[in-house]
C-alpha cells in the first residue's frame, strides 16, 4: 500500500508519526526544505534564537514537532523542497516538482493532505506596495528571519494572531506603531462564554492585550484600514474607527483577517465543498476522522478547516488512524474517542473565536472601486462590479480576476464578497473559484 502524506506541518508530522508506528513507510512530501509548517517554521541555519524566543508559550510543542520530524525522516521516503502541483483522483496520482525543477509522478493508494493555510487578505487601495504584507507574513519575517517589516509598523487584523504578533514584535524590541483590531469589544464580550471552552487560550489573549497597553502600544478596536498611501513604498495608513478617519505615518503595514485553508489539492481531488458560515469560507467536506467522499483522500489540519496547531496535531493523528483502519489495521477505539472529544472541545472554542473575530466581510464588500483586488493581474474591484457575472468563475472569465500566478488564492474570498454585494445575493450564490492544475506555478522544461 502506497501512503502519501502531503505537508510537514503539525498535522503532517503527527500523521506520519502514527503511520510509521503502524509499520507503514509513507512517502512524505513537503514544499519547504524542512518540517514544522508555517506555525513552527524554523529559521535557516545560522540563526541562534532558541525555541522559547521563537515560539513563546508553544516552545515545547514546537520543539517536539521538530524532534519528531528529525526522527521520522530516516523512516520514511522524505521529499522536502517538493511541490505537489496536481492530484488525479481516478488513477490516484500526484504530480510533483522537485527542488531542481524535476517533475515526477507519485502513485498513492491513500493520501493525507495536510496543506496548511495562508493569511486571509483584505485588499485595500495601496496594499500591493512594497511594505505591505500579510499578518502571518510579518510573523514569519520575525520568526524565520529576525526582521520587523519596517521601523513604524501598523498591524491590521483580527483574532489571536494580531495580538500575539504585536506582543512578539514588542518583545523583540520593535513594538508596532499601531494595532487595528476589526472586532469591537461588544462582539468579543458576547463571544466570551464560548471562549471559556479554552480558558488558557482566552486568557493568553487578555494577557497580551494588557502587556501591550502597559508598553504604550496603541491598540484600536472596531478599527479598519482604509488605504495605504505612498509612492512605490508605504508612507502612511489611513484607517477608521468609531471616532472617525485617521492617518498614521508608517513604513510597514501587515494585514490579515484570520487564515484561509490551502484547499487546492482537495479541490483537484474532487472532494465536495460546502460553505462554512462561521469561517465564511468554502471548505472541503470530511468526517471527523478526515475521510472524504473521494476514495483514498484524507484531510487534516488547517488545510481542511482553520483550527490551529493543536487541532492540526490531533487531526493528523486521527487521519493516520483512519488510513490504518481503512487498510484493515487495528485502531484502539479508546484513542479515537479521546481524539474526538478533544477535537469537539477545540471546535467549541474555535467557533467562539470565529464569532468574536469574524472576517470583516462588509468592509471587503465595500472596498473602493479603484482597489486592486487581484494583485497578480492588477484588476480592480470596480472592474469586477462592472460585469454581469452571476458567480465568481464568470467574474474571472470576464475580468481575469484570480487568473494570475496565485490562481485566486489571495483575492478569492474578498472577490466573492465584492461580487455577492454587487449582485445583491448571498455569498454562497456566487460560488467559489474552481481549481486547476498547477496549484502553484511550475517550470516549463
Amino acid at each position: 500500500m502506497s501512503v502519501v502524506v502531503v505537508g510537514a506541518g503539525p498535522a503532517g508530522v503527527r500523521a506520519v508519526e502514527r503511520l510509521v508506528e503502524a509499520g507503514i513507510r509513507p512517502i512524505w512530501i513537503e514544499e519547504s526544505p524542512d518540517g514544522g509548517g508555517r506555525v513552527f517554521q524554523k529559521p535557516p541555519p545560522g540563526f541562534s534564537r532558541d525555541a522559547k524566543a521563537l515560539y513563546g508559550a508553544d516552545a515545547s510543542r514546537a520543539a517536539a514537532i521538530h524532534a519528531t520530524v528529525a526522527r521520522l525522516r530516516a523512516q520514511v521516503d522524505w521529499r522536502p523542497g517538493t511541490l505537489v502541483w496536481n492530484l488525479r483522483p481516478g488513477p490516484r496520482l500526484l504530480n510533483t516538482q522537485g527542488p531542481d525543477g524535476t517533475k515526477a509522478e507519485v502513485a498513492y493508494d491513500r493520501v493525507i493532505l495536510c496543506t496548511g493555510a495562508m493569511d486571509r487578505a483584505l485588499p485595500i487601495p495601496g496594499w500591493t506596495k512594497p511594505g505591505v504584507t500579510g499578518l502571518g507574513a510579518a510573523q514569519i519575517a520575525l520568526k524565520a528571519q529576525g526582521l520587523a517589516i519596517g521601523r513604524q509598523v501598523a498591524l491590521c487584523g483580527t483574532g489571536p494572531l494580531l495580538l500575539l504578533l504585536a506582543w512578539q514584535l514588542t518583545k523583540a524590541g520593535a513594538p508596532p506603531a499601531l494595532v487595528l483590531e476589526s472586532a469591537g469589544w461588544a462582539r468579543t464580550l458576547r463571544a466570551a462564554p464560548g471562549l471559556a471552552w479554552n480558558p488558557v487560550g482566552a486568557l493568553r489573549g487578555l494577557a497580551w492585550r494588557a502587556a501591550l497597553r502597559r508598553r504604550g502600544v496603541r491598540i484600536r478596536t472596531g478599527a479598519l484600514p482604509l488605504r495605504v498611501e505612498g509612492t512605490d513604498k508605504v508612507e502612511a495608513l489611513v484607517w477608521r474607527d468609531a471616532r472617525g478617519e485617521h492617518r498614521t505615518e508608517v513604513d510597514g503595514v501587515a494585514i490579515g483577517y484570520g487564515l484561509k485553508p490551502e484547499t487546492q489539492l482537495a479541490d483537484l481531488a474532487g472532494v465536495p465543498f460546502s460553505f462554512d458560515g462561521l469561517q465564511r469560507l468554502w471548505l472541503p467536506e470530511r468526517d471527523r476522522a478526515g475521510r472524504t467522499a473521494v476514495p483514498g483522500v484524507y484531510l487534516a489540519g488547517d488545510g481542511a478547516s482553520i483550527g490551529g496547531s493543536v487541532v492540526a496535531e490531533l487531526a493528523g493523528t486521527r487521519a493516520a488512524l483512519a488510513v490504518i483502519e481503512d487498510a484493515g489495521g487495528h485502531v484502539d477505539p479508546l484513542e479515537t474517542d479521546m481524539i474526538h472529544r478533544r477535537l469537539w472541545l477545540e471546535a467549541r472554542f474555535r467557533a467562539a473565536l470565529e464569532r468574536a473575530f469574524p472576517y470583516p466581510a462588509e468592509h471587503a464588500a465595500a472596498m473602493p472601486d479603484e482597489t486592486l483586488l487581484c494583485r497578480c493581474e492588477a484588476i480592480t474591484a470596480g472592474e469586477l462590479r462592472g460585469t454581469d457575472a452571476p458567480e465568481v468563475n464568470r467574474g474571472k472569465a470576464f475580468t481575469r480576476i484570480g487568473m494570475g500566478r496565485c490562481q485566486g488564492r489571495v483575492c478569492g474570498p474578498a472577490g466573492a464578497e465584492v461580487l455577492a454585494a454587487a449582485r445583491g445575493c448571498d455569498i454562497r450564490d456566487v460560488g467559489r473559484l474552481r481549481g486547476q492544475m498547477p496549484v502553484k506555478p511550475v517550470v516549463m522544461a
Partner: protein
Amino acid sequence: MKADVLIIGGGGAGVSAALHLAKRGTRVVLLERGLIGGQASGVNHGGVRQQGRHPAEIPLAIRSRRLWSNIQELCGADVEFDPCGHLKLARNAEQEADLLRWNEMAKGYGLETTMFGRNAIRADYPYFGEAVIAGSLLADDGSANPRLLAPALARMARAAGATLLENHKVEAIEAGFRVLANGQEFTAPILLNTAGFWGGAIAAQFGEPVPVEALNPNMLVTEPLPFFCPVNVGVVGGDVYLRQISRGNVIFGGGRGESDPSLPRSRPLPEPGFLAMQKAVEIIPRLEGALIIRSWTGIDGGMPDALPVMGWSRTTPGLLHAFGFSGHGFMLGPAVGEILSELVLDGRTDIPLEAFDIARFNGQDGPEPDVWKTRLE
C-alpha cells in the same frame, strides 16, 4: 413558452443564431444547460484562423473572417480581436511541402499567404529555434478572447429581444417541437441543434446518430513574459499551437485532456501538457524556464473527419443542425449563427454546406434536405 425558433446550446453558433434571428424579428428561445459559452466556445485557443482549413470549410471561414472585421459592432463589446496574422510552421521538408500545397489550393479561394524559407523566417521571426525550417503567414488571420465572445453576443441577442435561458438542461424533446427544460415546456416549429458535443445525442434522438466524440483541448498558459511574439503560431500536424497575448502570457495547447460529458466535467492532463511544453520550447527556445500558471480544457464535439455537421436534418422537418466543430469552431461561430438564420428565414445561404451534411455518416436514403426547407413567414 411558444417561440418561432428554439435553440439548444448557448455556444458561439447558438447565441449568434439567436442574435441574427432576433434582429430580424423572430421570436427566439435559447436553452443552455450551463452558462453561455461555458464549454468549447469559451475554453478554446481563441484562433480566428482561415489558414490550414479543409477546403470544404474555406468559404465558411472566409465569410466568418469578413464578419470578424465588424465583430466589435456585432458584439457591442471589445472581445480582444487582434488581426495579428497566423504563421504556420514546418519542421521538416515534408511539412514544408504541405504548406505549399495548401497555399496553392487556398489561392483558388482568393486567400493570399506568404511563404518564409529557412533563412527568411529567422530574419523576420528571430525567436524561432532550429527546429523551424519554414513558415506560411496568412496575414489577416488573428485571435480573440474566447471567454468574452459568446457572452457578448448573448447580451446583444437579449437586447434584440431573444430569450436566452441559462442553467436550462433539456430533459425531453419531441418532434413538432416540444422541449422540456427545468420543468417548463417550450414549443416552436423550428429547432436549432447547436449543442456541441451534446448535439450528437439530439441528432440520435431523431434517428440520425453520428460518431461524435468529446474533444478536450489541453490548454496551458505561462506567466506574463516580455512581449516578443506578435503573430499566432501553429504547426503542420497541429500537435502544438501558441499565441502571446498583449499582456504577455503565452497561451498554448496540444493534445487532449479528459472529460465526463454527463456531468459535465473536464480536466486537463499533465502528460499532453509536458509534450506541448517540449514542442513549444523546440519552436521557441526562449520559453524554456517560463512558469506555467494555469491549465484548462472543455468539451467540444469532435467528428471523425473533423468537419462539422451543419444543415437540415434528414429525418425531421424543421430540425437544423450545427455542431461537431471539432476544435476549430470558435472563429466560425458568429457566421454560423448568421447562416443558420438565413437558412431559417430565407431558405438559402451563399455558403456551400454539402460537405457538412449529416447524411455523410449514416447514408440515409431520406429525401434531400431541401424538401424540409422551412421558411418562416
